């Protein structure tokens, strides 16, 4: 609500140049429409029959959900959807738990080596995933993790970014709260879980959104670690699906639309929440 007041203030000066304002608004709006055009075409084509694909009309003449029924009928797509959902959820839960726990420990405990551990974790931000995939792959191959859910998930179970983000937020939590809980005789784990965590709820939601989105769209590692069709996540599945479709564009667009719809729905429902989460993560990160 503090955000509303600068708006008012600034628009006062803005009002002075009215024509400019209208032009700017129009350009912004057109730009926004251009941004979503590829997605509109994707949806529109997914509702067309193969005969209509090449007329470039945005609104299909005889829209039908036949393509969706065709794609969903054999269950493979639902399987990929479930795989993505499972993997992204599990990794998100793990990150929320461990990143918060580590962030909290590094922010609120005093012990020798604290700063060293913080720097060590932070330094992993500099290591690109691409450098790790080869050792990960060989390790997974040795331990039998290739082509398993655990194999897809294990590299992301904790992240330095999340730890850093949570530490920044826990630093802002006043010690008094925690002391009071300590005097009440709560153990340290309970203090973290019951007292400290609720105080950083916005940060947790930001972390959860980022982790979930990142894992939902992740392509590189799942592409490498999965071999069977039944373990593909949506991005890997869609890539193979498109390949197997003999360039039937209406089917490929249906697949792409099915991959996009879940995130769009979630976004439209939780828009404010998500935008705020991204802002928080961006500013603190």
């Amino acid at each position, binding site marked *: 609500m503090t955000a509303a007041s600068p708006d008012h203030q600034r628009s006062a000066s803005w009002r002075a140049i009215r024509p400019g304002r209208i032009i700017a608004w129009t350009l912004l709006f057109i730009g926004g429409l251009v941004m979503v055009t590829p997605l509109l075409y994707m949806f529109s084509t997914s509702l067309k029959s193969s005969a209509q694909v090449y007329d470039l009309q945005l609104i299909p003449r005889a829209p039908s959900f036949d393509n969706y029924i065709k794609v969903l009928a054999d269950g493979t797509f639902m399987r990929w959807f479930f795989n993505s959902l499972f993997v992204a959820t599990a990794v998100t839960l793990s990150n929320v738990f461990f990143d918060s726990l580590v962030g909290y420990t590094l922010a609120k405990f005093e012990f020798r080596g604290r700063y060293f551990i913080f720097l060590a974790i932070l330094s992993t931000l500099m290591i690109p995933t691409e450098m790790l995939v080869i050792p990960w792959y060989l390790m*997974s*191959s040795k331990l*039998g993790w*290739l*082509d398993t859910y655990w194999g897809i998930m294990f590299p992301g179970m904790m992240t330095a970014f999340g730890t850093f983000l949570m530490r920044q937020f826990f630093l802002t939590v006043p010690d008094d709260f925690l002391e009071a809980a300590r005097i009440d005789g709560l153990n340290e784990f309970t203090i973290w879980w019951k007292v400290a965590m609720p105080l950083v709820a916005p940060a947790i939601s930001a972390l959860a959104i980022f982790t979930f989105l990142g894992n939902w769209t992740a392509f590189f590692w799942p592409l490498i670690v999965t*071999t*069977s*069709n039944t373990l593909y996540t949506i991005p890997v599945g869609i*890539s*193979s699906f498109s*390949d*197997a479709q*003999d*360039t039937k564009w209406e089917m490929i667009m249906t697949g792409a639309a099915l991959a996009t719809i879940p995130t769009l729905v979630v976004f439209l429902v939780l828009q404010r929440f998500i935008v705020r989460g991204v802002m928080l993560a961006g500013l603190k990160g």
Partner: protein
Amino acid sequence: MRKRFMLAGLIAGISLLASTAAQAVEIQYWQYVFETRVTAMDQLIKNFEAANPDITVTQTTFPYADYQTKVIAAQAAGQGPDVLQFYYGWLDQFRKGGVLQPLDSAAFPSDAIKSDFFGIVDAVKRDGAYYGLPTAVRSLALFYNKNLLKEAGITEPPKTLDELVADAKKATKTDGGGNITSEGLTLDFAGQDHQWWREVLVRQFGGTPYDDKGNVAYNDDAGAKALTWYTDLQTKEKVGSIGFMDEGQAAFKGGLAAFTIDGTFRLGAFKPITDFEWGVTELPANAEGVHSNFASYFANGIGAGSTGEKKAAAEKFLTYITSPEAMQIWLKVVGELPARKAAALTDANLADPIYAPFLKGLDYAHTTVFVDEAAQRQGAIDMVNRVVLDNQAPKDSLAQAATAEQAIIDKSRQ
């Protein structure tokens, strides 16, 4: 005689299995995703399981682009299949990766293979042992869209390369801006055109693609002429454009190409076309009447990790899927020609307007012994792209491609 021998072996195998193991054996079968092949295999598995209730076969499929990678990776992780399909050109890669074991000559006698199958099966023979057997073989032919030909006033499909160019020119449609809206001939080197160029065009222009020792031999005048002729189709004759409709087969299937060169395996995909009528004819000869064709196949081999009763089951399964019965099913569903001569060269097939051109092609077909099919194909794609996109002289591009391909061949020999 041989049939009886196999039957005896089968009965012996069954009784042996029945006495030693009462529980079902589960074996893994792998191939790449291609709708009709998967359907055909499902059918074969069903038949096989009905005849062998003590064996279950699980089919796993991978996208073509990742297939080799996934197979070698799975092998390294000790998760390889019992029976797998592989392109004959991948054999050396797969052998190097320890994916395959040679076929046991007791179960698959070499003489019988030699006399019953088409000669090209020898491409999967190394040091006297076969590493797999094909269900079907494939050759190339010229597909044409009858409606588009009629529209262009062409009454008979072309018989020579010159006629092909002339007809393709007549059938090409362009819009006001000079963009092709319907191709005369599809140009798709990533598809079958690189095979057409290697084993057919190079020979028809007087060259040989590879010498007796398997070294690159196309870097000469004949090769340059063949490449110039091919790239001219896009740059000079403008009868087609690489990348049109993304893939050549998509353009033909969409009714936007008069001619396309493709293999038997495409028959299944073209069968459902209802928008137009299409036909097949032999690949055009050159002016002197020289014909050539490219034949290839996917063989089924036994995974290196398959042992004991799994191996016995795998051998039984392999025997079934390379039996005449399986070949007829494969021909019906996928459209690929039987790999056994007796099953392929039937009167019915030879009279069939669609199968006949492919069968004739098998008579004079050549097989390329690939050492790394993906890399060699990539080299061919780049060779054409350098001419078409970068305006490099065909002769220079050819020389560059020859050097690169020879390097791949040399590397595989180390």
